[in-house]
């Protein structure tokens, strides 16, 4: 008994040490990926841009200049004006707030629901698994944009509708991954042992299983943010996202569409921002995959 109590703290610190160095090794692998590091820096800049939008441009994104309808880019107004005479640079800068809010929050909601559903289905199996897995199948069997269009129309389009609806429909992928991992992990000795000494179910899930599935979930989430930003833009583009006059990239694009052939710059700039944002999130996602999940490495 005395031996057991003596070794326990030692094992614990050793465990902590290994844990920490694992994340440090992952960070080293991540740093080796140049695109991922650049991506992370650009994301940092985008976040700063969204937070400090008023310091980057003195223009009010909703102010309509008289007689400036569709005026082309100039030094003072680098992106020009939209059809209503509003400064496009300001609108695009403020638009990053919507894109990042929806991209990050909706992903967060989807991850949380996905982890809970996946862990329950994988750990308990049986009818719980059957029920939850059919829910996952149902969500996956749906062209997600069609579902979003109907739901936004039902609830009424707004920023929060968009966030909640995308989050509440996007969790199926996470649930599927977590379920599969939990199912294979719960057969392993350390879980069987924990159960044998009487650790409660929720504690096993929380302390033993979830830390082990976190890697793949982080990878999947980071790779999914770009897609969600595109979804939000598509929804706003179709008029079912964030309602006007709030500037969102999809909305600005949609505003530019009727005047596309006379003022192509209106639709050009917000789209360019979407592409850059999606690209950098994908770069970081690829870097995280290489860092956290070496088995799944691209080549």
């Amino acid at each position, binding site marked *: 008994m005395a031996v057991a109590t003596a070794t326990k703290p030692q094992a614990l610190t050793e465990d902590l040490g290994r844990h920490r160095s694992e994340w440090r090794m992952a960070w080293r692998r991540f740093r080796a990926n140049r695109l991922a590091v650049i991506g992370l820096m650009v994301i940092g800049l985008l976040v700063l841009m969204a937070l400090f939008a008023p310091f980057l441009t003195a223009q009010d994104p909703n102010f309509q200049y008289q007689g400036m309808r569709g005026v082309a880019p100039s030094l003072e107004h680098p992106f020009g004006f939209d059809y209503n005479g509003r400064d496009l640079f300001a609108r695009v800068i403020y638009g990053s707030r919507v894109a990042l809010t929806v991209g990050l929050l909706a992903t967060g909601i989807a991850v949380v629901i996905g982890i809970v559903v996946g862990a329950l289905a994988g750990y308990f199996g049986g009818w719980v698994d059957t029920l939850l897995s059919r829910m996952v199948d149902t969500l996956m069997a749906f062209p997600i944009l069609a579902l979003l269009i*109907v739901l936004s129309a039902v609830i009424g389009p707004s920023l929060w509708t968009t966030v909640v609806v995308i989050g509440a429909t996007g969790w199926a992928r996470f649930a599927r991954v977590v379920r599969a991992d939990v199912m294979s992990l719960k057969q392993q000795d350390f879980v069987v042992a924990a159960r044998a000494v009487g650790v409660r179910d929720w504690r096993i899930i929380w302390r033993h299983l979830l830390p082990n599935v976190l890697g793949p979930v982080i990878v999947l989430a980071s790779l999914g943010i770009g897609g969600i930003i595109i979804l939000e833009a598509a929804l706003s583009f179709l*008029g079912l996202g964030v309602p006007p006059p709030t500037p969102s990239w999809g909305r600005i*694009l949609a505003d530019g569409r009727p005047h596309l052939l006379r003022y192509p710059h209106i639709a050009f700039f917000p789209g360019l921002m979407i592409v850059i944002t999606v690209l950098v999130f994908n770069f970081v996602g690829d870097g995280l995959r290489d860092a956290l999940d070496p088995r799944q490495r691209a080549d």
Partner: protein
Amino acid sequence: MIPYLTRRTLQGILVIWLISVATFVMMRLMPGDPVYLLLGEGEIRITQEQIDAIRRRWGLDRPYHEQYLIWAWNLLRGDFGDSLIRVGVPVRDMIFEAVPVTAKLNLIALAIALVVAIPSGILAAVRRNSFFDYLTAVGATLGVALPNFWLALMLIVLFVLYVPRWIGELPLVGRIPPFGLPGWQGYILPVLVLSTEQMAVLARVMRASTIEALGTDYVRTAYAKGLPRLTVILRHAVRNALLPVVTVIGYRIAFILSGTIVVETVFALPGIGRLFTDSVMRLDYQVVQSLVVLLAVLVVAANLLTDLAYAFVDPRIRIE
């Protein structure tokens, strides 16, 4: 095989049933009373008796579960009801009109995507880290990050504004119409947009699976037998590497349908996607709920077929 088939089909039916229930509930939650929608906007002078008569005529006076059963039973018989907006036009006719446009667009786009993606995926895998591999990677990365609605608008600007200015009318094609479908030229831009993302995804999958196949024992054996390189690559590696591509196409059908909704709307093409967005905007419940269930059936069927095809092509996959 038979028990597996039965189980998978039953699961598919269950999923479709769940979707039909969810759709029915969502449609009842939509804002606006269908009766007033039927009557149209403006000042309405109508007695309570007349409203009740319309409710009875449409079965809206019955309890919800009965309404659902009647609707579901009619769906099963292929009777989707009449459009609420285009009064008197059966929803089935509207869908039949739209399907060929969507089918043509997406099948041509898929064919083009495959023709480009498979050879470039193979070449990129065989010549790893070459300039071509690098080029494919850049193309695939960009192809996934380009929102299709923006790509569509930029292609319209390019082909309608700049191409005529720079090189005049294109040989064989002439002028490309930006909206609608006058002639086959109307398909060029939407097909280009739809195939871009497919191309990017499929080239990536093809490259990865070819690399994996090239590292296997049977490829080494084929080389050891003294087979020429081309034979080994085409007959041994590529044939096996194609399998994941088939699977990815099958599982991507839900994404493909999402893409077609946007692209048809941008180009004003009278396909399923356009019909869907228009019906949601006009609150034409009858059309929306039929389309949603139909799309779900399509995706479930495609996923089931993919699984079966996979099991059929690859005998190593044991079906439990």
